[in-house]
């Protein structure tokens, strides 16, 4: 009897010290306390390329149709008719901050904390600027200096920085990062899935991005634009299609491995080549690579017809008597819509077009706008070979095109702008930004009943609805500074 009581008491005493092993029990056995910076860089680059979600909504549904690369009939392609779907409009904002921004800021913090080599930090800073410039170009004032620091600095409601301040800092960042880079290979090595650790390519990318950002300032600070463009040119730009900043994708296994646009094309058969884009591609050897007839896949230029923007099915019937859009061209599904297609961040062709503009405006880069223009067109046609064999354009065809469409110095900026617009097809964020800056090509807005913009092409996309409730004060301050959170408000560098 006593034995039993003592046994029980002994058992109870064991319980008293019984948080034995609890500390270890609550350490997640399936996760690590830290991982290598290279693992994070790979992820950050993938997240920059993005997923189906935002590529569908922000890049294609909005930007590509507003920019009249594509035209669509169904109403949920809201960019085609300038209607407002808040979730679609904010999709890049909604995905970039919790995904891309978080990874990049966390990586940068780790590199600094752990004292990794300067060039790894510089590479990360360059990628970081790419991420933020895409955000600010699309939305205007956005969280920047305080963004992505929920854990690092405990900032849960970041303030919105003015686009002017963000641009100043991004240019400074690019300048410092480029200065920190020489040649050779970074410790990221092959984890750098964009440039395989090649520091000279990162340096060129930094300067080329600096050139892109400098020209964005043209309407608000022409002198600053010229100064930064000069600095970028002197720093060393991309010099061939080997320098293109792009990410190669694969057909899986996960969504993130795939080209987000490609995933959209797999799922959504609605986009047609816009009548506007089709007009520009006449006589262009790129046409049969980029477009194919929906009904039978024909790429014979004679079979390729562009769909006007701003039509619903009733409008289509009224206008053409057609019941569907099978007779129209869509993105060529045998070449450019693959889930393993490359995703371009910035191309050498764009750089040449920007140089042409610099030459035209300020006599920079040797002052020969035509040479740069021709180099740009050539590079833009040649780079399609990254889509595979079927997309190789012969030198003869390129030469013929340039002969048939010679550079006209009286119309230089428009020609450059139009070619830039063609060359950035599918990187619609960039198309939209450059169009707002240059006004080229001259697009005729549509005016669908009930549109949100009074028949004008939107000038930005709108913030995330969740900011209205999750970050109300900073959201309100951003609107007070920038203007109403609507599609027609202009961002800082897009002055009237």
């Amino acid at each position, binding site marked *: 009897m006593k034995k039993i009581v003592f046994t029980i008491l002994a058992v109870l005493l064991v*319980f008293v010290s019984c948080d034995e092993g609890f500390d270890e029990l609550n350490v997640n*056995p399936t996760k690590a306390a830290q991982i290598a910076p290279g693992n994070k860089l790979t992820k950050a680059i993938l997240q920059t390329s993005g997923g189906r979600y935002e590529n569908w909504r922000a890049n294609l549904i909005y930007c590509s149709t507003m920019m009249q690369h594509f035209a669509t009939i169904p*109403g949920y392609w809201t960019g085609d008719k300038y209607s407002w779907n808040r*979730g679609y409009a904010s999709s890049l904002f909604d995905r970039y901050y919790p995904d891309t921004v978080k990874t990049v800021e966390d990586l940068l913090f780790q590199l600094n904390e752990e004292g990794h080599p300067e060039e790894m930090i510089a590479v990360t800073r360059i990628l970081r600027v790419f991420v933020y410039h895409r955000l600010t170009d699309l939305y205007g004032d956005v969280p920047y200096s305080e963004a992505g620091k929920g854990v690092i600095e405990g900032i849960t409601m970041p303030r919105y920085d003015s686009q002017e301040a963000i641009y100043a800092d991004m240019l400074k960042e690019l300048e410092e990062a480029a200065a920190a880079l020489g040649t050779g290979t970074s410790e990221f090595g092959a984890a750098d899935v964009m440039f395989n650790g090649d520091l000279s390519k990162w340096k060129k990318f930094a300067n080329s991005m600096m050139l892109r950002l400098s020209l964005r300032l043209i309407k608000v600070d022409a002198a600053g634009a010229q100064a930064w463009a000069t600095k970028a040119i002197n720093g060393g730009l991309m010099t061939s299609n080997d320098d293109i900043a792009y990410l190669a994708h694969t057909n899986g296994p996960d969504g993130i491995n795939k080209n987000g646009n490609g995933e959209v094309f797999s799922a959504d058969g609605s986009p047609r080549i816009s009548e506007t884009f089709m007009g520009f591609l006449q006589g262009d050897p790129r046409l049969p690579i980029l477009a194919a007839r929906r009904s039978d896949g024909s790429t014979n230029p004679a079979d390729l017809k562009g769909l006007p923007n701003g039509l*619903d*099915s009733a409008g289509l019937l009224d206008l053409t008597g057609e019941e*569907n859009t099978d007779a129209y061209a869509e993105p060529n599904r045998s070449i450019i819509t693959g889930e393993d297609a490359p995703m371009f961040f910035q191309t050498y062709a764009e750089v040449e077009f920007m140089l042409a503009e610099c030459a035209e405006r300020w006599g920079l880069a040797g002052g020969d706008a035509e040479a740069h223009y021709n180099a740009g067109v050539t590079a833009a046609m040649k780079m399609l070979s990254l889509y595979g064999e079927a997309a190789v354009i012969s030198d003869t065809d390129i030469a013929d095109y340039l002969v048939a469409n010679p550079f006209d110095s009286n119309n230089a900026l428009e020609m450059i702008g139009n070619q830039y617009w063609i060359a950035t097809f599918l990187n619609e964020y960039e198309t939209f930004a450059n169009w707002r800056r240059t006004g080229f090509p001259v697009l005729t807005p549509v005016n669908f009943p009930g549109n949100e913009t009074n028949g004008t092409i939107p000038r930005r996309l709108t913030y995330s609805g969740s900011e*209205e*409730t999750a970050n109300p004060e900073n959201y309100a301050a951003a609107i007070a500074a920038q203007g109403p959170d609507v599609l027609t408000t202009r961002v800082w560098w897009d002055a009237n």
Partner: protein
Amino acid sequence: MTKKVLKLLLAFGLLLVTYGMQAQITVKGTVTNAADNMGLPGANVVIKGTSQGVSTDFDGNYSIEVSDANAILQFSYVGFSSQEIAVNGQTTINVALQEDASQLDEVVVTALGIRKETKALGYSITKVEGEQVSLVKETNAINGLQGKIAGVNITQNSTGAAGSSRVIIRGNTSLTGENQPLYVIDGIPMGNDVSGSASLWGGNDGGDGVSSLNPDDIESMSVLKGGAAAALYGSRASNGVIMITTKTGKGQKGIGVEINSTTVFDVVDTSLQDFQTSYGQGSFGAAPLTQEDALNNSSSWGSRLDGSSVVQFDGVSRPYSYTGNNLKKFYRTGTTFTNTVALSGSNDKSNFRFSATDLSNQDIMPNASLNRKSFSLNLGSQLGEKLTLTVNAKYIREGAKNRPRLSDAPGNGNFSVMNAAPNINVLDYRPGINEDGTEFRINSNIFNQNPYWAAFHFNNMDARNRFIGSFSVRYDVLDWLYINARVGTDTYARKSTATEPWGTAYKPLGAMEEWERRYSQTDSDLMIGIDRDINDQFAVSAFVGGAQNTQERENLKLRGEDFVVAGLEHVQNTSNQTLEHQYFKKKINSLYGSLEVSYNDYLYLTGTVRNDWFSTLSFPGKTTPNNDLYYSGNLSFILSDALELPEVIRFAKFRTGYSKVAGGADNPYELALVYGIDGSHLGQPFGGVGGSDPNQIPLGDLVAYNVDEFEVGLDTRLLDGKLSLDLAYYSKETTNDIVPVGTSSTSGYSSALANIGKISNKGFEMLISARPVSTDDFSWQTTYNLSINNSEVVATDAANGDIQLGRTTSNLTQIRHFVGQPYGTIYGTSYVRDDNGNIVYENVANGVPHAVRGEYKILGEGVPPTTMGWTNEFRYKNFNLSFLIDAKFGGQIFSSTNRITTLGGLHKQTLEGRENGLTVTGTDVDTGQQFTATVAPEDLAEYWSNIGDISEAFIQDADYIKLRQISLGYTIPSTFLEKFSISSASVSVIGSNLFYLLRDAENIDPESSYQVGNGQGLEYFGLPSARRYGVSLNVKF
């Protein structure tokens, strides 16, 4: 260990064989109420000194085998004085018991399985008998409690027959954590995991843990509402405890056989919807002209239905006429067959009961079904004088096929059926598949699924094998000292397959997932206790003990995207395969003690103390405590025994108590940021921040939260016990609640774990029951319960930011906590109004006023604060009739059905102005002036689409009064049955969910959230409500 168990089982088997080997005499008789000479059904007849006994039948008759001619029989009945009568060779003993309200020695099972007289309890506990729960069979037995207990709020929601329910006792205790009660089955906690639920993006409800329970096995359910009752179960009981006692073989002479058979039919309740039927498919007031047009514009903004021939989605032209109710055509009559066979037996040393049940359900959704087979074995045995052993084992095998997809459109057939234009006949959507095996499209929006494709080609199934077992042993060291040890486990493996087939419009190559979850919860508990009278006046009952709870969960998921061979649905037949593995483990260790002192059997004082250690609050190097000590005290005072009260008051008890409960985090691994490798790209592994919630900022200093509760109550019996009244008031406050506070996603995270949430619930409960008529042939028993719970969010985080619990895909409507507001308010965009309350419009000059989307406002309460139930039971001779009316008031619901059917021109409010235009009066935002404009018929869609962004326009009151259930039963006279050696038989017809006496919400069931999580109040095309009709048969041999 297993060998020992086998030996024990063998021993039980031998005991069973020894039945009927002793010489026995049979004593028969009737137990009646001395006041009216009516038979007392369910009175206990026990042979003194043994556990052998029987209950009287409906008429008060009993029959008991007595092995000793000198035995003494004890006759007892709740609320009556007991009597003891020596057998002395008699074979007929009739007993008339005296009613005695002061003798309320009803025994209930309280925390840790301790049996207590109700009069000693200083807190609220409500017991419901098994028959009441299983009267009208629900596929989820817990739904049988709805409307029956004050303070228990059950929401069934539109999750399908195999879906989950939400059970909340005395309001939501935690801002974002688990709020459902702890289920304890035969003393062992039972897991109540929800195996997946629909989100705002769609999905289905995988059912919850408690739904596995077989209603035919339930002896009774006791609801321990307050913290005082639950203090001894620790933190997991801070939401209240539902204790389920399953049937045993006790009191069954020889081997008894019981058969229950129930058949229930579900018929979709089309009386809920009232959509327009006079305008057909189209846009801008015109019918579609082409197939493409019909595919692009599925909405009902066409012209007036005129019988003309109009092309539809499939290119076929059909009469432009109303085709009848599509819900009736698409949904089928659901059926549920439940059959139980139970064997039971006992002798003076041991008892057993075994039951087997088969439940076969065909849901109203075509091709959706559920099958559940349950086997249950209870063994109890007295080994020698002092040792009592009890073994419970349940094995449940459950399989569901095609749980209906809910919420957002992908895969959700409900969405397409409900939104079909009046001239569309959903039967024309059949068979849902093209000759090439792809989905037969009904809409150019790829997410709007053909409902037949969704129902017949999305192959989803799940199977769960579950074992719940417990073993307990009690050793009575002395007649006042005992030791009790118990170990139990609830473990299951659930395998599910979800397929998005090849050829689905939104996923042309398809995808599938194989998912396996292994879950186990193990509890062990050891206590030592005393029960002792100190002198004539004082008695003591006390115990101390220790307990350990371990929960483990492991998920394995294989996902394959893009089928290679069309039609072969195997995860390896895909071009992209990914895998996912998750693992959770947590433990709680506890020490506890209780002391009860009673004085003169009319004053009881009880105190408890407990300390819990939580692994979820532990981490290497953590400096804040991972444990918390808490306690309770309560008092019960039998006024009617202690004081001279007026004659009319037969019994009165005053009770009051205070308790504190502490709890740890629900989830493990939330204290530190962790990283994971997510995959690889071009041969390079990649990863980043990634715990169980990579978007949550962890909190390293996490400590326990507390729930403090004060309760006071009065329990009275008046007018010779014909009327009883039980009142309770409680006030409970949760502090240091562990909450993920919403952060701006631009911080990189969507929430931050915080430890300062505070919520209060104050409430009032009333239970009145009366027996106005009680004669030989006729009796009427009526019971009404009411509870009002007022919740208030007191604090969230340092900045008192708000917390989001749920939202719509558009984010225009959300469920959020706001400081100073009730739990889970509906928050969304509102109209802009001028000073006179007129709605402000823009775009007036262009002829189509657009309502201006105003600021986010609190638009309603997601949880109804007032619930009530009214049960009536009539008996006339062998017939009995009972019905239950239940009601909820004060809640609201945001109806996506009404929003989307308004945008689509199907809602009746869109009829106005279709011919001559809609007159809109309001204030023009540009001029500030009043205007009256006429919206042309072709612009109505545009006018309404702007209103679609205003959540306020689609908030509806969720108030209802409903005839929840009704049953009419007939007990076949025993004189007739004796010939067939049947001891009792009854047959009932039953109905539930029959109709509303009051309903404010248009077109929807006011209880139709698509999930059972904390964010209640969002409706989005769940399964429509069904009326249930059935027949039930019970036979005992």
